[in-house]
């Protein structure tokens, strides 16, 4: 991949464009980034994208910003990260600056409200779609533990309202224990 001016421009405008469409919380950025960086540009592979999303999720701050920083850093180091952060914060900065000038009128506009009501159902569908795809990947590993972790975090977060940071810490611990057990197994197998 050549890191010329065109590459940086593409990186900046991709994050700018994706950020302008992250309605309904940060999670929509996941399907949008996958489509753009994995499927369209082939800059990052599927597995690594999942890792980056996991790191973005586990760090403080907004998910969309964190994910952009990670993608930018992965593709072009520190300058890449700064470029993608700028691309991600500019759209909300511009849009909110404009809206705050006339926010009463914007909030009460019928057309805007109906559009957003429809988009909310659309956002739910986009997230459902990416969850189905990702869950399929987890189930295909044919191991019980990841499926339990997935179902467990879903239930704990959706039904019990468990804190995201706590979920992340617990699952990291589960993953670590699993890795320790696997290593022990492998070592014992080697001894025999």
């Amino acid at each position, binding site marked *: 991949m050549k890191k010329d001016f065109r590459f940086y421009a593409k990186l900046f405008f991709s994050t700018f464009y994706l950020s302008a469409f992250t309605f309904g919380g940060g999670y929509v950025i996941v399907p949008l980034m996958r489509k753009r960086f994995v499927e369209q540009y082939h800059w990052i592979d599927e597995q690594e994208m999942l890792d980056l999303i996991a790191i973005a999720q586990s760090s403080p701050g907004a998910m969309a910003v964190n994910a952009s920083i990670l993608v930018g*850093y992965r593709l072009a180091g520190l300058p890449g990260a700064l470029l993608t952060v700028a691309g991600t914060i500019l759209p909300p900065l511009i849009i*909110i600056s404009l809206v705050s000038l006339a926010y009463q009128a914007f909030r009460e506009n019928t057309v805007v409200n109906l559009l957003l009501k429809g988009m909310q159902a659309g956002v739910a569908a986009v997230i459902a779609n990416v969850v189905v795809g990702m869950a399929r990947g987890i189930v295909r590993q044919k191991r019980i533990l990841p499926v339990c972790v997935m179902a467990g975090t879903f239930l704990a977060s959706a039904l019990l309202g468990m804190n995201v940071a706590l979920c992340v810490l617990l699952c990291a611990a*589960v993953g670590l224990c699993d890795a320790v057990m696997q290593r022990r197994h492998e070592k014992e197998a080697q001894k025999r």
Partner: protein
Amino acid sequence: MIYLELFWSFFQIGLFSIDGGYAALPMIRQQIVETHGWLSMTAFTDVITIAEMTPGPIAINAATFVGTQLAGLPGAVLATLGCVTPSCIIVISLAWLYSRYRELWVVRGVLSGLRPAVVGLIAAAGISILALSFWGGTLWEFAFSELDGIAIVIFAVAFLVLQKWKPNPICVMLGAGLLGLALYGLPGII
């Protein structure tokens, strides 16, 4: 010094809000309404409504809004920068560690636990948006009489289109918005 206060206040919000979405709201309220009295509770509710109506993370939207109200465009820029600075420092450090140690078995173990967890967390966020869209409340507030048939139809159509043709999700969201405008708006016009 209002600029410095804005920066510092949103720096703390950025630092202590894991998940950045709705989970960040209590932290934002504490800083903006209670500690500094920059906005009244009513104005704060307006900020949330507007943040929901516009793209971008809620914390960044709130930063821009409060910054603009208090100190114009420079205020907006500083508050927003304050909000993303902690992320930049922490996430870039993590990204560096990941690029260096991703093959290490400890790191691989932790990530293998996080990957399925992330899918579960995204599913949970999706379900709460679905609940908001279908009956306008949380998952626990389900009411059959509140069910919104139009929202269910839009969701079903959008989901099938995504599964079958794998189009750009942005087009699907915009299409869903237009469909909403048509279906919700038509009865009023006729």
